[in-house]
């Protein structure tokens, strides 16, 4: 059985191209895909950054054509790709251990646009679940995806690939946790508004941030923002008092000079008995005088500081991918071993069936000739069964072990020849119909 993966991602196709391939209902597509003869099992992963199909097949060339046609006809509707992009450039293809490695890298977020991002694992689990629901998953893909999830878990826990945040909002949360043990019960002051500052506030609230106060130049705007964030509205004239009551301050308000200066913070620190204040200034130009950072107990981060931390963290994550790749490689080799050993299963089953057919045939003949009663027959039955099992134990164990390596597949051929499994006239061959002949890959 071969594993084939065909797909496109953020590196091979631009967003307008990827949009064309987005799949809303993978289960329906998969059902159609696995009803043909080319594909045995399939999982379809569709996210904003990638669309991929991983499949198992016995007919590699036919499956390759089927999957390419699936992308061109079923997903893209037969239209040419935008921006003059060729299919060869857009679609990539991985086979066997390369496909396994790709799935493990995707699950571990090594292949993501933002290395180490956690969403891809959830998306992969959803894709797998859809394939299971569509009954498109069999022994191999079940195992492949479970190993992929385990590999991702290992990579996340044993390397620093996902340790350090890379978005401005998550950096703000991370920094706050280095200042405060918990954000529960902490209060925040939002001065002004803006998309980025609101994302940071949402991220901080996700960590349990308590009461939020909103201050703005125009009372109407303050009230509107306060309603949105379940906060209280204030005017800028209250800033001094509000600062004294705030553990986290987020600012993003227009103005040609800093609104919050060191004197204001000095008073606030005095009033709050020098408890620390974490200040996130996303205003352009800056809303907080840089001198404020010199004060003990005030931790001021402006947009450049936050972006600098995010960049450094992203660089660290990229460095960690070297260790992650080594883990993935070890897992790929393990899975490869299992996959090779799987090829021994039909031969082992065949061998057992032949032996059992011979045993039963001889037992039937012998029992009628000797005129055995039921009790004697049962005793003989147990005796012959034990003999067959003991005789087969060593060759079967060796076959299983050897076939975990690619080179060990010669043992399979040897077993078939030695036990005459492909000879229809050999003793016990009448049982072949029960197990079927092992299918051969093309």
């Amino acid at each position: 059985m071969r594993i084939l993966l065909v797909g496109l991602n953020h590196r091979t196709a631009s967003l307008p191209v990827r949009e064309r391939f987005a799949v809303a209902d993978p289960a329906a597509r998969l059902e159609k895909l696995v009803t043909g003869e080319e594909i045995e099992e399939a999982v379809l992963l569709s996210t904003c950054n990638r669309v991929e199909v991983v499949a198992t097949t016995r007919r590699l060339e036919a499956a390759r054509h089927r999957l390419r046609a699936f992308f061109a006809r079923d997903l893209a509707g037969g239209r040419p790709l935008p921006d003059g992009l060729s299919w060869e450039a857009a679609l990539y293809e991985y086979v066997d251990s390369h496909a396994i490695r790709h799935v493990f890298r995707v699950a571990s977020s090594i292949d993501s646009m933002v290395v180490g991002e956690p969403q891809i694992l959830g998306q992969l689990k959803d894709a797998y679940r859809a394939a299971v629901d569509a009954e498109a998953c069999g022994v191999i893909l079940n195992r492949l995806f479970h190993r992929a999830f385990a590999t991702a878990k290992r990579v996340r826990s044993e390397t620093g690939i996902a340790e350090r945040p890379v978005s401005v909002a998550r950096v703000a949360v991370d920094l706050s946790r280095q200042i405060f043990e918990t954000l529960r019960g902490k209060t925040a002051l939002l001065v002004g508004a803006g998309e980025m500052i609101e994302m940071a506030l949402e991220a901080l609230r996700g960590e349990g941030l308590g009461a939020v106060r909103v201050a703005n130049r125009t009372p109407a705007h303050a009230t509107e923002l306060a309603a949105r964030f379940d906060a209280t509205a204030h005017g800028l004239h209250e800033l001094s008092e509000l600062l004294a009551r705030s553990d986290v301050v987020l600012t993003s308000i227009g103005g040609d000079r800093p609104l919050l200066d060191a004197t204001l913070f000095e008073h606030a620190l005095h009033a709050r008995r020098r408890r620390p204040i974490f200040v996130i200034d996303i205003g352009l130009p800056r809303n907080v005088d840089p001198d404020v950072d010199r004060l003990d107990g005030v931790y001021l981060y402006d947009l450049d500081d936050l972006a600098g931390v995010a960049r450094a963290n992203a660089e660290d994550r990229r460095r960690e991918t070297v260790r992650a790749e080594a883990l993935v490689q070890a897992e790929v080799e393990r899975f490869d071993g299992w996959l090779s050993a799987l090829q021994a299963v039909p031969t082992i089953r065949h061998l057992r069936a032949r032996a059992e057919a011979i045993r039963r045939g001889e037992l039937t003949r012998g029992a009628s000739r000797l005129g055995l009663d039921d009790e004697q027959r049962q005793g003989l039955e147990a005796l012959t069964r034990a003999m067959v099992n003991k005789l087969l134990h060593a060759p079967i164990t060796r076959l299983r072990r050897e076939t975990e390596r690619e080179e060990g597949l010669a043992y399979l051929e040897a077993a078939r020849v030695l036990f005459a499994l492909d000879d229809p006239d050999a003793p016990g061959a009448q049982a072949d119909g029960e197990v079927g002949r092992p299918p051969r890959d093309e």
Partner: protein
Amino acid sequence: MLVELHLLTAAVYLAATVAALLGLALPAPPAGRVASVLLLVGAVVHAVAFTSLHAATPPPPLTNLPAAASMMAWMAVVFCLLLMLRGRLLGLAALVAPLAFVAVVFAGERLALQGALPPSAPAAGAWAHLHVILASAGFALLGVAGLAGLLFLAAEGRLKSKRPAAWGRRLPSLEVLDRINVVALAVGFPLLTLAVVAGLLWSRTLTGRLWPGGAHVIGLLAAWGVYAGLAGARFGAGWRGREAAASALVGFGFLLVALLGAEFVA
């Protein structure tokens, strides 16, 4: 047997140090958990060693520096373990464990040299024990406050530099480190005060005078004076954060100098 127990304790503390440093350097949590377990094992073996020492050489040998240093180290480890129950304090363990290792090696080495610890000052029953136990507990707490101060300054420096290091994320938060400083000072300073009182009463029982004199007494009183100043600044003037951390670290440095200086002079 005593020497072997001390060596075993030292080995476990050393292993805990390595595990704690690995826990800070690596993202995987197992090393951190191993460090906590090793520190706990070290504290148990240390307690056994200490009990054996107490049983082996009457009168109790608490009144000399090696034994007192060993007891301080044990109390600091126990305090650190109690704090670790409440949060991510691997950074503190990474500082307490090596100091405990040094203290135990010091005590063990003296044991190996002398066979058993001779009393360096005349022992005088309950007051002497009380003095040594209270002083050791107070110094242990104030030592942990100093180490927490060191961590605070390191973590705060990285935050202020706008280049927070990966290991910094595994340190306790500034809030927790500051809280350790408050608790250690609030409990440690009264213990140290009681130790001074017990020491004076011990002196009176022994010599009939409250002021026995000597480097040890001067060192202890100087340390008490420094910590009285720190407690006043923290609880009176409202010092916290960087000021409190730096002063706790300076106080700890003074404490070490006073203890070692007194031993050297003696």
